[in-house]
């Protein structure tokens, strides 16, 4: 055990974050201001998510961290070790075994249960920020439910590109009231925002926390004649053969060679363990040797 307070943050900070989480759950999609602390990592590395995780973790939890779907990137490994050290929690890479999952820019492929909590790292929580730089104005727009500007933006996409070109951080309307930025998840993940687990969003630099309780109505904005479409690369995973998971494209040589593979490493790995093999894959045991 370390000499840090449980889960690193002091108790008064955790209480302040916990109060923001409760109000966030009571007003789904509304961004609750909170006094974000400096964390021992730079902004942009998940300081908001880490503070939310610190406020919800208990010693009995099993913690998982994913970064763009992967459990083994620098960011994911260091955050997982951070809470292993400061909160003495068990850690896992298996989605089904985790009780708290901190994520950067993906929702796990496997459906979450009611007893699971998904904590998102959010860079820019305000969906209207790139359309209206003033916080005073965007706050007023949320208060008045004035979201016409967002529809104009999507309409301009259609008039320029013939389709809604927004492919990640695709805006959603929560429970028919607040327009929310689901963090930069691919729009493929948007339908999964309607889930059984508790979703908490933390933006450290921007000092906002928001939440979506289980079974909350989350609708991706669209038009009747241009309905929302959850798109992905039209390919199967080259490692596990999955045709319904979100794929990363990987350049493998200088000759234009490339392969597609699941962005969710745990999903891909458990499929390979179960014997599924993709076009360029090898059986799991052989690969591990």
């Amino acid at each position, binding site marked *: 055990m370390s000499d840090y*307070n*449980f*889960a690193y943050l002091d*108790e*008064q900070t*955790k*209480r*302040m974050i*916990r*109060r*923001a*989480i*409760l*109000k*966030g*759950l*009571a*007003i*789904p999609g*509304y961004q*609750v*201001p909170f006094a974000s602390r400096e964390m021992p990592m730079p902004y942009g590395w998940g300081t908001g998510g880490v503070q939310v995780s610190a*406020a*919800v*973790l*208990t*010693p*009995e939890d099993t913690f998982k961290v994913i970064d763009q779907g992967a459990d083994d990137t620098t960011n994911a490994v260091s955050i997982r070790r951070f809470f292993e050290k400061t909160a003495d929690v068990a850690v896992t890479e298996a989605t089904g075994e985790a009780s708290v999952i901190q994520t950067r820019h993906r929702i796990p492929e496997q459906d979450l249960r*009611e007893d699971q909590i998904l904590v998102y790292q959010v860079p820019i929580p305000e969906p209207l920020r790139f359309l209206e730089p003033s916080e005073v104005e965007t*706050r*007023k727009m*949320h*208060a*008045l439910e004035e979201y016409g500007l967002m529809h104009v933006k999507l309409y301009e996409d259609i008039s320029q590109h013939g389709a809604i070109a927004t492919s990640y951080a695709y805006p959603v309307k929560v*429970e028919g*009231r*607040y327009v929310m930025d689901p963090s930069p998840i691919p729009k493929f993940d948007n339908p999964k925002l309607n889930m*059984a687990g*508790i979703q908490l969003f933390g933006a450290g630099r921007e000092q906002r926390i928001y*939440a*979506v*309780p*289980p*079974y*909350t*109505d989350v609708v991706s904005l669209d038009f009747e004649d241009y309905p929302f479409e959850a798109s992905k690369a039209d390919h199967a995973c080259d490692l596990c053969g999955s045709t319904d998971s979100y794929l990363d494209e990987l350049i493998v040589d200088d000759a234009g060679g490339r392969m597609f593979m699941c962005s969710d490493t745990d999903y891909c790995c458990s499929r390979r363990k179960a014997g599924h093999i993709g076009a360029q894959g090898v059986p799991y045991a052989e690969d591990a040797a």
Partner: protein
Amino acid sequence: MQAAILEGGFGDAPIDAARAFRQIMTATAQPGTINKVAGAQPPKPLSIAAGVVLLTMCDPETPVFLTPAFDTDDVRAWITFHTSAPITTAKNAAFAVGAWDDLPLHDFSIGTSEFPDRSATLIVETAHLSTTGATLCGPGIKDMATLSLPDVAAFQNNALLFPLGLDFIFTCQSELAALPRTTKVS
């Protein structure tokens, strides 16, 4: 100062508060579920659950309102010693503790349209808490849930204020349930 008020706080504050918050958060995220909490031994008439919520959520930044039945010297001293929360009027309160009939519902802050989070959370002490009674639906509830509520019309009116409104935590001995403003009661 009586020694009694020095007792009854969390034995291991960081761990006890973390476990308690998980129960409070689950109750808020899943209205209609009843969750068990432990760790506080507050003076009467406060229930264990109300004591746990106060210890977990309150500090010098959260003014607390007590209805007359709860506004005893012991309760005041216990809250002050363990949380440093100022005791205040209903109008200025972030948290309030009382029985349903004694809480002046219209005096509490329901937030503003630009800051709907600046609203009071009421800890309602009840003699009885069970998953029978009024029907609930809304965020956090799969199809529908039921919960023993002291009233129906008041919660319907509160839900109409959305996104403004009050949030409720019902406490009974060591159990609690929550009813955020989004829940539709019938």
